[in-house]
C-alpha cells in the first residue's frame, strides 16, 4: 500500500463511533516489547538495528491483521510524511526523528500500528474511537500473542517484559484516552483536575504526548506505572478516573449553559465568526476555536451533521497535513496560515450560524454543585 492511500482516508478512530464519543476522542493502548538479548535500539549499532528491523518487520507483516497494510522503513519517508504520521498518532515524535534501522507498519484502517526500533524494538498500538480501552487492549493483546510465537520476547518471571527504560518494565503497557474538555477549561477547573489525577499516579499530557502544550482543549490521560498490577487492573483504574473526568466535564457544561448562557453564546458565536471569516490562522488558534465549535455541536447549537467535517478539520489543519494536501515540499508558516484559513472557510461554508435557542440545557448532578 502506498503512502498516498494512507493519506487519502482518515483513520477509523476519527470517523467511527464509540461510547462517550463526545468527550472521549480516542482510546489507545500501546505495548512495548523487545527481542531477548539484542541491544535496545538506542544502544544498538546500525547493523544490529537493521537485523532486528528485518526480523520484526517480517513477523509483523505476516500478521493476519496486517493483510492490508502500509509498511515502510523510516529513511524512505520525507520529514513531511513522517510528520503526517505523527499528526495521525500512528508514530511518535521520537520515532519520526529516527531514520536507518527503524520502520513503521500500520493497517489500512489505521487502527493498528507498530513502530519498529523506537525506544524499544517494538512499540505496537491499537487506537479506537470513544472510551473503549478494554476493547482496544484486546485488539493489541491478540497481536502481541500472535507475535510471541515467531519472536523471542525478553520476559523475566519476576519483572515481566523488559524494556529499554525501567519506567515501562512489567506490562510494558501505556493505555491512554484523548479527552476533549472545553467546559473544564472555560470554568477554570482543569488545573484542579490535572493535579488530582497526577496525585493518583496517572499522567495528563497535551495533544502530542510528553512535554506538549494542551491545544484545542485536548488532554491525554494515561497510566504512569507498569509494574505490580495486571493490565486489567491498570485499565480498570484508568477507566474509573476517566469516567469521573467525563462527569465533571458534563457538569461544567451544564453549569455553563444554566448560569452563564451569555458567555457561552458569546464564545461560540465568536469562534464561528472568526473561523468563517479569517484569512490567516495559526494551528493553535484553529484548534482552540474548533474546540468551541465542537462543544457547540455537542450542545445542539449546530446540527449534528457537521460533527464529522469539524472533527476532520482538527487533523486537516495540522501543519504537515496542510502542506501534504497542497502538494508542496516547502511552505512558509505565513503561507500555511493563509491556506489553513481558506480550508476552514470552505468547509464551514455549509454550516449554519449558531442557533442558541436550541441550546441543550441539562441539570448538573449533585456532586458538582458549587
Amino acid at each position, binding site marked *: 500500500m502506498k503512502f498516498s492511500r494512507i493519506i487519502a482516508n482518515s483513520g477509523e478512530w476519527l470517523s467511527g463511533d464509540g461510547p462517550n464519543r463526545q468527550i472521549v476522542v480516542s482510546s489507545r493502548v500501546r505495548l512495548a516489547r523487545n527481542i531477548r538479548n539484542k541491544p535496545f535500539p538506542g*544502544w544498538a549499532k546500525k547493523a544490529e538495528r537493521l537485523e532486528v528491523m528485518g526480523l520484526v518487520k517480517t513477523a509483523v507483516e505476516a500478521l493476519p491483521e496486517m493483510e492490508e497494510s502500509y509498511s515502510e522503513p523510516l529513511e524512505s519517508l520525507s520529514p513531511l510524511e513522517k510528520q503526517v504520521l505523527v499528526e495521525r498518532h500512528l508514530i511518535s515524535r521520537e520515532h519520526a526523528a529516527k531514520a536507518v534501522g527503524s520502520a513503521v507498519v500500520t493497517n489500512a484502517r489505521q487502527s493498528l500500528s507498530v513502530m519498529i526500533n523506537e525506544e524499544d524494538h517494538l512499540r505496537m498500538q491499537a487506537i479506537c474511537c470513544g472510551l473503549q480501552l478494554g476493547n482496544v487492549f484486546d485488539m493489541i493483546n491478540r497481536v502481541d500473542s500472535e507475535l510471541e510465537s515467531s519472536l523471542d520476547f525478553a520476559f523475566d518471571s519476576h519483572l515481566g517484559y523488559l524494556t529499554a527504560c525501567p519506567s515501562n518494565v512489567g506490562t510494558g503497557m501505556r493505555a491512554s484516552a484523548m479527552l476533549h474538555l472545553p467546559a473544564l477549561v472555560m470554568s477554570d477547573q482543569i488545573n484542579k483536575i490535572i493535579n488530582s489525577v497526577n496525585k493518583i499516579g496517572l499522567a495528563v499530557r497535551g495533544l502530542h504526548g510528553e512535554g506538549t502544550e494542551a491545544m484545542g482543549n485536548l488532554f491525554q490521560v494515561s497510566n504512569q506505572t507498569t*509494574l505490580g498490577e495486571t493490565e486489567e487492573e491498570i485499565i480498570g483504574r484508568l477507566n474509573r478516573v476517566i469516567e469521573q473526568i467525563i462527569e465533571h466535564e458534563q457538569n461544567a457544561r451544564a453549569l455553563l449553559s444554566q448560569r452563564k448562557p451569555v458567555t457561552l453564546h458569546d464564545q461560540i458565536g465568536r469562534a464561528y465568526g472568526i473561523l468563517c471569516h479569517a484569512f490567516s490562522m495559526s494551528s493553535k488558534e484553529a484548534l482552540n476555536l474548533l474546540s468551541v465549535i465542537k462543544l457547540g455541536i455537542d450542545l445542539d447549537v449546530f446540527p449534528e451533521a457537521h460533527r464529522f467535517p469539524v472533527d476532520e478539520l482538527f487533523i486537516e489543519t495540522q501543519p504537515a497535513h496542510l502542506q501534504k494536501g497542497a502538494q508542496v515540499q516547502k511552505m512558509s508558516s505565513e503561507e500555511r496560515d493563509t491556506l489553513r484559513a481558506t480550508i476552514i472557510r470552505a468547509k464551514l461554508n455549509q454550516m449554519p450560524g449558531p442557533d442558541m435557542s436550541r441550546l441543550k440545557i441539562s441539570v448538573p448532578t449533585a456532586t458538582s454543585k458549587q
Partner: protein
Amino acid sequence: MEATVFLTQIVDGKMQKVNLCESCSKEKGVNDPTGFALADLLLGIGDSQQIEKNPASVKCPVCGFTQADFKKTGRLGCSHCYTVFDDGIAPMLKNMHKGTAHTGKTPAKFHMTRQRGEKLKSLQDNLSKAVAAEEFEKAAELRDQIRLLEAEPV
C-alpha cells in the same frame, strides 16, 4: 582527625578511595546528597557493598553496557542488563512503580516451560519418595513418565 567518611572516586577507570573526616567532607560537599547523581545512587555507588565490586567497571557481557552509560542515557543496553545491574535497578523500580513484581501477562511459551518444570519437579519428588518407600513398581512408572516428559521438544 579520624576518618569518618569514605569517598570512592573513579578516575580514568581506576578506583581511588579517599578517607575524610566529617568536617573535611562537609567542606568538599561530598555528603551533600544532591551532589551525587541519581543514577549513581540507584546503581549502587554510595552503597558500601557495591563499592567493593567497583560497579563502574561492571559490564553487561551481552551488550557491553556500563553504569556510566545508564547515567548518561537513563536507558539500559539490553534485556540482560536487568540481571547484571539488578542490585541497583531493584530499589529504583520500587520507587517508580506500584509494586516490585510483575503480575500481568505471561508469554504462552514461558508459561509452558514453567508448567513443564513444575511437573518434572513433582514427578522427581514422587520418585524419590517411592524409592525411599521401596515401592519399586511405582518408581519405575514415574521414571518412565519423567523420561517421556524430558524427551518432549520444548
